[in-house]
């Protein structure tokens, strides 16, 4: 039967949220360019990137606060591109929480339910349920101004989740909290989201937040998606120099991949492999660099200390290795921290070093071609 065919599904898969080639222009400037993304049920996806990369605009297009210039936004397999926010099945936690200051905590949580025409008994039951979920049942009658930042955030989450939205949207939810509270709230939030099993899209510029919370990370830069992958994919196998530099510490070594697939830098640093020939960068992370004494087998290289930063648990050392600047995180015995100028023997774990083709030829490359 052809009536069975498709059955309301337009995409390849049954996505809760699907962005199809979504773009947003503001006059000449392009905030979001051709973003496509599908979110599976229960998935926690993070939009990560520097400020101005289009991640917040993308989130706001899902919520409906921003209309795409082109492309389609689908929620629950329905085209929502031209629907106002209040017709979309989303629940949002705003960066500033946006709790209604004239309503109590309970009234704030019940607000969405009232608009959804829930009856009083169900509303009150749901409000109690949500307050229990965020572990603040004693604050029901307080006003938002009487709550701490962390409490406000939890109430904002309870308010968004109360409506049982198809997708939970979080806009930089931790940026207004201090560093310690941020880590705790992150763990709590993840637990709550896992508990209710809601599909979640959240925006952050904090790589640690993205790595610890997400099932998948969407790295964005200048309005475009740079890479989509699991936190492991993004960190271990970055596909571009931008992604590598944005997530975690790394040193970028410029060079090229020769015909045999081996990367060779200008200073003759070699990363064997089967890389795509052409101009490329080697991404050397601090954990690829070890002190010669304790590192895994590899060629011992002579290095000179350029900078040394003590972080308590470890010291971050910037080294000059044959003309390349590399970084190392190492725990040095007390009183034995390396000082600038000091020589040091290191090994490089070249098996783990990733090589990415440089997206465009640099000025020096061009010059070399010209000569």
């Amino acid at each position, binding site marked *: 039967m052809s009536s069975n065919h498709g059955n309301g599904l337009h995409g390849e898969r049954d996505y809760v949220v699907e962005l199809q080639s979504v773009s947003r222009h503001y006059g000449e400037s392009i905030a979001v360019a051709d973003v496509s993304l599908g979110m599976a049920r229960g998935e926690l996806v993070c939009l990560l990137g520097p400020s101005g990369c289009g991640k917040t605009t993308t989130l706001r297009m899902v*919520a409906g606060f921003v209309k795409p210039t082109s492309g389609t936004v689908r929620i629950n397999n329905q085209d929502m591109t031209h629907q*106002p926010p*209040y017709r979309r099945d989303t629940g949002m936690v705003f960066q*500033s929480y*946006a709790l209604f*200051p004239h309503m109590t905590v309970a009234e704030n949580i019940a*607000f969405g339910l009232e608009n959804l025409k829930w009856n009083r008994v169900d509303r009150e039951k749901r409000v109690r349920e949500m307050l229990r979920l965020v572990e603040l049942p004693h604050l029901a009658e307080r006003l938002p*101004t*009487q709550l701490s930042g962390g409490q406000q955030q939890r109430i904002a989450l309870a308010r*968004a989740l109360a409506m049982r939205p198809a997708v939970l949207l979080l806009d930089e939810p931790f940026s207004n909290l201090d560093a310690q509270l941020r880590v705790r709230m992150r763990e709590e939030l993840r637990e709550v989201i896992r508990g209710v099993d809601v599909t979640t899209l959240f925006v952050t510029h904090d790589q640690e937040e993205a790595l610890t919370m997400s099932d998948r990370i969407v790295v964005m830069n200048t309005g475009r998606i740079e890479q989509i992958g699991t936190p492991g994919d993004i960190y271990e196998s970055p596909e571009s120099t931008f992604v590598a530099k944005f997530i975690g510490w790394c040193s970028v070594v410029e060079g090229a991949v020769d015909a045999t697939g081996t990367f060779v830098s200008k200073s003759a640093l070699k990363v064997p492999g089967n890389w795509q020939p052409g101009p490329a960068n080697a991404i050397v992370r601090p954990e690829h660099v070890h002190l010669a004494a304790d590192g895994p087998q590899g060629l011992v290289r002579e290095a000179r200390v350029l900078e040394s930063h003590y972080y308590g648990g470890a010291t971050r050392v910037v080294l000059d290795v044959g003309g390349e600047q590399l970084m190392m995180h190492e725990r040095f015995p007390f009183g034995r921290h390396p000082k600038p100028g000091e020589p040091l023997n290191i090994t490089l774990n070249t098996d783990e070093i990733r090589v990415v083709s440089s997206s465009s030829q640099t000025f020096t490359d061009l010059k070399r071609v010209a000569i």
Partner: protein
Amino acid sequence: MNPPLERNRKFTAALLLAPMVLLLLGFLVVPVAGVLRSSFLDGDYLLEGTGFTVGHYLRFFSDSYYSSILWETFVDGVIVSLICLVVGFPTGYSLARLPPLARRWRTIIVILPLTLSLVVIVFGWLIILGRNGLLNSVLFNLGIISSPKTLLFTRPAVILVLVQQFLPFMILSVLSVVTQIDPVLEQAASNLRANRLVTFRRVIIPLATPGILVGCNLVFVLSISAFITPRLIGGNRVPMLGSLIYERIMSEFNWPSGAAMAFILFVAGLGFTAAFNALAASRLVMGGRLHAR
């Protein structure tokens, strides 16, 4: 803080406040006390009264002519305030939601009428509303009316001109309170399935109430004490308390009776202001809730 410094600060504060206090004493408290004193003088002519009587007050409250004018004045004040609110709220709200630069020059346009002399404004209205005025001739030439209508010396005309005069106060009050309402709250409401009407009713109005009350208070008090407009636009056919007092003092030279009415108006204005303030601070209104701890 050590005591000498504390004393020094208090002295500085007193010194800074002194000019204003002297100004208020000399030009507000003393004259009002003078009016209060005059209102109890026994006699019906300019400054010739002596002794003490409450007769002027008694006459005002016992004569239904006066009490009906008092009532009419209050009703007009309420009508003017409500019209200003309905017209001024959308304007003030949309101004508040504009980017600062665009808001600035539009706000100047709103304030501009206040820089004109009231007499000029009223004469302008006389030209528009007169029997052979602009409005009548336009309506006549368009064939909408067959003979000129009496527009001047009617209550609607007085209310219209009062609205035009006091509208900026409402717009500015609403503007100042709406700029304090974070637009993200409207987005939050919208995300919580509230359409624009529900957002307006349940988020914007409650949060704007303090400004609405201030605007209504200003417009109401200004309206009930207006006298140039009722006098020139309303004439004798639309008596309001302000024009009645003017009449009593400037035409009949009856200072004691005029003073009594002026004092009644003064107390009424003060009373309404106190009531508005109490309302704004009460838990019934969101302003009170916001400030309650």
